[in-house]
């Protein structure tokens, strides 16, 4: 890699998967939008990355804040507009988001609405026949994940200790549930949905693929090729499906049972 190696894992995977193509101009430094290729055809890659110079102090570390939420919406909507009369490019969300931005300004200006706009755009792209793939290379936390990736047709993750999915960091989760951090960690070892690690997440049936890589931190040669292959396979697997049905399997038995019984009662 060159001297411009990105500071975050998400940024490095974005660069590697797009052969270091330049990010599109006109976007803030915290949202990198790159036009690359997948399976020999154009594809759009999007990552949220740290921007130490952001105007919003609570969103300088790769968090999804106000600017990031609305910019994700813009990047996805622009892809849809550009492709409205032609082939629908795949959209790959490269996911390495430590959290949403926690701050007073963020709440005051409606960060929930910014994240809604992002989720809405990804969902609209999926329904408009863009294959949308979420590639989890680092943390996929809570609202940040809901805004950037969780609306994808398929989720792929790297099998690595630093890859985590959860609804809240351990300190805050301990406070809200009136437990100690040790207590939260102990429960995370036995209650599958409370775990932070990606293998537990896989057991819930939410992943399309969990990929072994030699070095998740520094994407190189065979690892990048393996991820490209997985993205290609996911893209083909999506086929004509437009909803999130592929995630609903035996890993979430109660979710299935509720839907089955609800359907039986739906029509009077």
């Amino acid at each position, binding site marked *: 890699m060159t001297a411009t190696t990105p500071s975050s894992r998400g940024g490095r995977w974005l660069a590697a998967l797009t052969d270091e193509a330049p990010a599109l101009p006109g976007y803030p430094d915290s949202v990198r939008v790159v036009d690359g290729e997948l399976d020999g055809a154009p594809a759009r890659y999007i990552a949220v990355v740290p921007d130490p110079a*952001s105007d*919003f*102090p609570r969103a300088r570390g790769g968090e999804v804040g*106000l*600017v990031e939420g*609305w*910019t994700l919406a*813009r990047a996805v909507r622009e892809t849809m507009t550009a492709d409205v009369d032609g082939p629908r490019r795949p959209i790959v969300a490269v996911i390495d988001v430590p959290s*949403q931005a*926690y701050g*007073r*300004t963020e*709440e*005051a*200006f*409606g960060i*929930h*609405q910014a*994240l*809604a706009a992002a*989720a*809405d755009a990804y*969902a609209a792209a*999926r*329904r408009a026949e863009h294959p949308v793939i979420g590639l989890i290379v680092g943390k996929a936390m*809570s*609202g940040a994940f*809901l805004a950037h990736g*969780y*609306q994808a047709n398929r989720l792929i993750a790297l099998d690595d200790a630093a890859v985590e*999915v*959860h*609804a*809240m960091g351990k300190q*805050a*989760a301990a*406070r*809200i*549930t009136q437990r100690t951090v040790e207590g939260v960690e102990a*429960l995370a070892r*036995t*209650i599958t*949905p*409370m*775990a932070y690690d990606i293998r537990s997440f896989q057991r*819930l049936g*939410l992943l399309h693929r969990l990929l072994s890589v030699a070095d998740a931190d520094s994407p190189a040669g065979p690892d990048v090729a393996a991820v490209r292959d997985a993205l290609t396979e996911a893209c083909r697997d999506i086929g004509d499906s437009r909803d*999130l049905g592929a*995630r609903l399997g035996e890993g*979430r*038995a*109660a*979710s299935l049972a*509720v*839907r089955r*019984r*609800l359907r039986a*009662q*739906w029509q*009077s």
Partner: protein
Amino acid sequence: MDTATLIARESFVERGARERVAGLLDAGTMRELLDPFERLRSPWLAEQDIVTQADDGVVIARGAIAGTAVVCCAVEPAFQGGAIGEVGGAKIAGALELALEDAEAGRPVVPVLLLETGGVRLQEANCGLAAIAEIHAAIAALRAHVPVVGVVAGPVGCFGGMSIAAGLCSQLIATREARLGLNGPQVIEQEAGVDEFDSRDRPMIWSLTGGEQRRATGLVDTLCADDAQAIAAEVAAAVAAGPEDPARVADVDAALARLARIDGDRRAEADWVRDAFQTPTDDRSDA
């Protein structure tokens, strides 16, 4: 308002989820699905020695409002702070998915969401988060067919992933007692420090995230008194409206222009935020 009217007024906020739904529906039309006798309890709370509830804190009911077919999804504020676990989340997502199937088949059913929730139930973290993503997907898809009506009345408010769900609704109704925000006060204080956000400063919290401020900034569409009849009337009006993409969600350029104008370092106060939302984005060069 005269005294007799005030005394006759019934609070919506003080009602539980089932009673709230009953008050919205045309008399005799309410049919609850997966009611408490189904005993669909959280499989995860029991493992943690936490008391479960036979409806997992979510009420799903079909019925009619002024003759229009609706499905109400109401979160019970009194159980686990309205937090969304696997079962309750699947009840809402599943109901919305069925409403979408019906809408696509030409049988519109209007969803009415009563959102009284702290967001993901942390004891079932990733199951709650997954369900909320499915709720988002369904609301976004339904909006092309029918209005999706959200109500945040209080006392819990609407937070976490479910505040995003509120943001996705076509029509959002709130009371002055309601709060709407992504991160709850205690979480912000824990993550960012008490200087950033004091979770005990209730006037500040309501001034920035309360229903009145959210209405003034366009993040809520209708402000309504805590009056069961008045809220029912607002819900009926929203149900009767056509499907549309609210500017709240769709106007990306306006939102980015607003953010470009504000100073991210400035300590947010209610008046400043209102001014920022009211400044037109396209006809002011001195902004």
